[in-house]
């Protein structure tokens, strides 16, 4: 299951749902809000999702991971809204009998999520500017608004 949530992600609850006595390995990925991106000081992040399609595409990615790698279960959540520094934006958990396939699957899921799931991020900078990430048009920074 891939969920878009507009409230803080509860990691221990998420991980709890993956508990399984056949599982020997649990890998989690957490994406946290960083204070610097490409040299600019970030105050907070704003995430926006096209939730219906994001959850559908996310579920597809999780199903692909189950097909490609020998894993027992997986779950991913992405938060939307305004996030402060250090807050958790995305969580991916994978459990498997053995660790190799859990690492591979977790990496596949977060890589594909970033590439394919319709979620957008706007950085809010200390100088008051805001910018949608990956949306600069031919490098002209027209997406920066004040």
């Amino acid at each position, binding site marked *: 299951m891939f969920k878009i949530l507009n409230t803080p992600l509860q990691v221990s609850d998420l991980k709890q749902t993956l508990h399984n006595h056949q599982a020997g390995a649990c890998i989690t990925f957490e*994406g946290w809000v960083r204070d610097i991106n490409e040299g600019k000081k970030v105050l907070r992040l704003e*995430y*926006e*999702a*096209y939730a*219906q*399609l*994001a959850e*559908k*595409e996310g579920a597809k990615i999780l199903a692909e991971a189950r097909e490609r790698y020998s894993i027992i279960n997986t779950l991913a959540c*992405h938060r939307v809204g305004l996030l402060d520094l250090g807050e958790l*934006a*995305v969580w991916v958990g994978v459990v498997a009998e053995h660790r190799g396939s859990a690492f591979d699957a977790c990496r596949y899921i*977060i890589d594909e*999520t*970033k*590439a*394919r*799931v*319709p*979620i*957008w*991020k*706007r950085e809010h900078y200390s100088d008051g500017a805001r910018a*949608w*990430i*990956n*949306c600069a*048009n*031919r490098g002209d920074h*027209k*997406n920066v*608004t004040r």
Partner: protein
Amino acid sequence: MIKVRIKYFAILREQRGLDEEIVSTRAINPIQLYLEIATKHKFTLAPDRIRAAVNDEFVTQDYALVDGDSIVFLPPMAGG
């Protein structure tokens, strides 16, 4: 002419100034429709950087639009 619903997200929502609208158009596919509205509303994202979804499914840019479709133009993804 067909009528379609366009939903806006992220930079497009901001540049359009609204979440969604219903438009009448002669565009026969998403790419034509994007060019039409991008010119009108001065969207800064080049059409080759946009993907399209219709009725909550990804579609190719030559998908044949039909009356009543609900279309979303997707700026480059930036989750995570």
